[in-house]
């Protein structure tokens, strides 16, 4: 058995031994990393559904080449299986269909697709009912059991737990755009309290539908600079005007350093710390004094046992909305002070868009790859700097740098603020 390695608080060190990823840039670590470090964009005009009349007509969609009607929940789970399989294969933990720990799943809130609603509505053309009673009448025929099996909130966790053979009850999470990071927090905490030696953290979001585009548009959250699509996401730029919706999935295999060493697994990095602070100011905006985000950053530094100047790189939340990028810069500035000027910070969302529920986990995977390769992906589309944001955003071109520690930020509607610190394998 390997020696139990403890962190600065006397807790077992928790490592990552497998990562998998699917984004609008492609499927798998290698394709994604090539594109991401080449500064390519995965943002395109939406062709999956009609965007006539919509103010936003672009997204970072994932096309898996499946035939048949598009059902968003099925799409989310398809991506999840792909990222999970890649991570499990890399990790070598367990055996196919059997994972020795629980599943923490970041998955979008479920809703019935319009195509399915319409199908139920058409079921009995002679019905004299309208509205929900008419769909319920269709449900009574027993021909729509799939609606129950797919569109309840427990469906995703059940499907993946069965397929992947995780232990116990799957835990499905929803903390808006921080959910991917929350799944990692929950996995770390389960291991730290001795409930398990390993945890599977899966995040996925395939929820870009007509209705979701309209909903985010109504909140004025999306960019309307549709042409050209690949230039639309421009975090920290002066002319940024909203985020680009995107799809994707990422998986991380977490386990104790001790158990990874004992089975001879390759260690990709360490989940060094986690910090969180909920905001009570507004449903979609941060406290103007930044105290909640600053609190989350201070908490992660303290949990990691690191001083600000010991952070080598920041993987930003960087959504490209006027509000987020302003508040993220303001809060980092307050928490880090002068040394912030020496820390490169970049936003993967400039290339892959904002994969919402999955974003935090996708960015965790890319953070691990930066530690592994010593390459920082750029913030592309940084053509018109915002003079009020003084950050080294690694503009437009990747940078080589030996990176030992990464701060990854995830902030979401509903006052969700989660920060994670990853570091390299312990010496």
């Amino acid at each position, binding site marked *: 058995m390997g020696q139990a390695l403890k962190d600065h*608080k006397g807790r077992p060190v928790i490592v990552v031994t497998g990562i998998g990823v699917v984004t609008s840039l492609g499927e798998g670590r290698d394709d994604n990393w090539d594109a991401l470090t080449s500064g390519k964009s995965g943002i395109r005009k939406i062709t999956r*559904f*009609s965007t*006539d*009349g919509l103010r936003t007509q672009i997204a970072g969609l994932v096309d898996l080449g499946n035939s048949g009607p598009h059902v968003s929940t099925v799409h989310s789970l398809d991506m999840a299986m792909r990222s999970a399989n890649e991570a499990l294969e890399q990790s070598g933990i367990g055996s196919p269909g059997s994972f020795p720990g629980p599943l923490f799943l970041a*998955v979008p*809130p*479920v*809703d019935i697709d*319009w195509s399915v*609603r*319409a199908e139920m*509505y058409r079921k009995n053309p002679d019905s004299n009912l*309208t*509205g*929900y*009673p*008419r769909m*319920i009448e269709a*449900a*009574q025929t*027993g021909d*729509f*059991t799939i*609606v*129950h*099996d797919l569109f*309840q*909130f*427990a469906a995703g*966790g*059940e499907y993946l737990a069965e397929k992947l053979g995780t232990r*116990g*009850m*799957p*835990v*499905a*999470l*929803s903390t*808006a755009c921080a959910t991917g990071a929350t799944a990692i927090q*929950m996995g770390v*905490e*389960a291991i730290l*309290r001795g*409930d398990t030696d390993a945890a599977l953290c899966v995040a996925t979001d395939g929820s870009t539908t*007509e209705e979701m585009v*309209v*909903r985010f*548009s109504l*909140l004025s959250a999306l960019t309307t600079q549709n042409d050209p699509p690949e230039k639309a996401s421009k975090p920290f730029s002066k002319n940024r005007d909203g985020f680009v919706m995107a799809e994707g999935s990422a998986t991380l295999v977490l386990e104790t350093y001790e158990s990874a060493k004992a089975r001879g697994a390759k260690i990709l990095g360490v989940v060094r710390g986690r910090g*969180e602070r*909920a905001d009570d*100011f*507004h*449903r979609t905006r941060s406290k103007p004094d930044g105290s909640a985000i600053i609190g989350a950053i201070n*908490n992660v530094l303290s949990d990691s046992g690191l001083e600000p100047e010991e952070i080598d790189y920041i993987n930003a939340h960087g959504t490209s909305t006027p509000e987020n990028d302003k508040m993220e810069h303001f809060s980092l500035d307050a928490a880090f002070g002068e040394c912030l000027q020496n820390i490169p910070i970049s936003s993967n969302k400039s290339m892959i868009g904002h994969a919402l529920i999955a974003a935090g986990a996708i960015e965790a995977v890319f953070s691990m790859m930066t530690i592994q390769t010593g390459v920082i992906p750029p913030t592309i589309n940084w053509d018109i700097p915002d003079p009020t944001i003084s950050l080294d955003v690694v503009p437009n071109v990747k940078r080589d740098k030996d990176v030992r520690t990464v701060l990854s930020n995830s902030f979401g*509607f*509903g*006052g*969700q603020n989660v920060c994670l610190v990853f570091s390299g394998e312990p010496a």
Partner: protein
Amino acid sequence: MESKPDEVWVTGIGLVSSIGEGLETHWRHLTTDTPPKPILDEESFAPYPVHPQAEIDVSSQIPKRGDQRQMGNWQQLGTYAAGLALADANLTQKSEYLQEMNLVVAAGAGRRDEEVDTAILEGLGQSNDPAAFLVESLSNELRPTLFLSQLTNLLAGNISIVHGVTGTSRTLMGEDPGGLAAMQTATRQIQSGQGDLFLVGGAYYASRADGILIWEAGNYLWDKPHVPVWSRTDEGGFIFGTAGTFLVLEARAHAEARGVKPYARIHSIEGDRCRREPGEATRIAKEQFDRMSRDIPKGPLAILSGASGVQPVTDEERGFLESLAERGYDPVYRGYGTQFGQSNEAHFLLGMALGALALSKGEFFTPFDSTGFEKDFTGNIQQMLLNFWGSWRGEGMALIDTPPDTATRGEG
């Protein structure tokens, strides 16, 4: 957020259901008439009965009208129950505690706008270009506030805003087992020293056609007049019930330092899943009970069951409960679904609240039906088993008890 590993105390309960609001209302209702009369709305969604929400004065817990307007009725119900729990734990506006308090919420999504959906579905059938019609209609009909009022994690978000709870904030999904997972997470965090003060809860607002649609599609609903869960024969089925339930969980040392008394102590919570092949849930429950029973003396055992009435699993659960007699126990159980219906994310939390309430009174509830399965319980109770098999998935069990050598809430 690390503190010392500790016992988990329930120091505050907020409860709203079809029966009413607050613990005393529920205690009276569930201990006076045998059996108590369930509160039902049999008209609105006929043939499906529902247990509707009792009237509440929303403004008493959510004073700002601006806040009220931003919420769906499920969010209002949950935010209201959360406020009751904080008040009950003497934490209202105590920012020195609230700003470090951790929130664990079990939530689904808010009710869809049925009028808008109906108009779109009618129009889709008439349109020559349904794809364009759908986009145009959604753009014209949806309101900005609707999104947030339906968004899963905005129950937690609203609780932060209205009540000032700003430690960690985690929302778990997944209907009834989602509530179980929320409670188990918070309990384990306190037991292992990952936090010492939590607000845990969930809410389900039963009077909604979109919920009925999904569960009728799977043939899970009871579509006849109300009968006790144990009497639902053939394919059985559940009746949706409204519940908003929040509990304040606190490390013993934290509660003692604040000078507050517990309703009950959480001994342990377990959860698992299976495909529900015949006997699978029973096998899981037996293993869970094996671990807990080391701390349960033989003899009369008060049990709350979350059985939904769906078959065959409800019959299987009753068989498991009765089988405890073979191990030297006298199982006396109450199927609280008979009185409250099935309240999805809130359902497990409701069971925990009822269990803690009964322990603080030292007595068990009157039988919830006249089937004869639910026997009288005479004498004092010090332990309560909560057996919880989700209507579709999830097998959970919890053991809660009266902390020894401690005055509890019911003792004044």
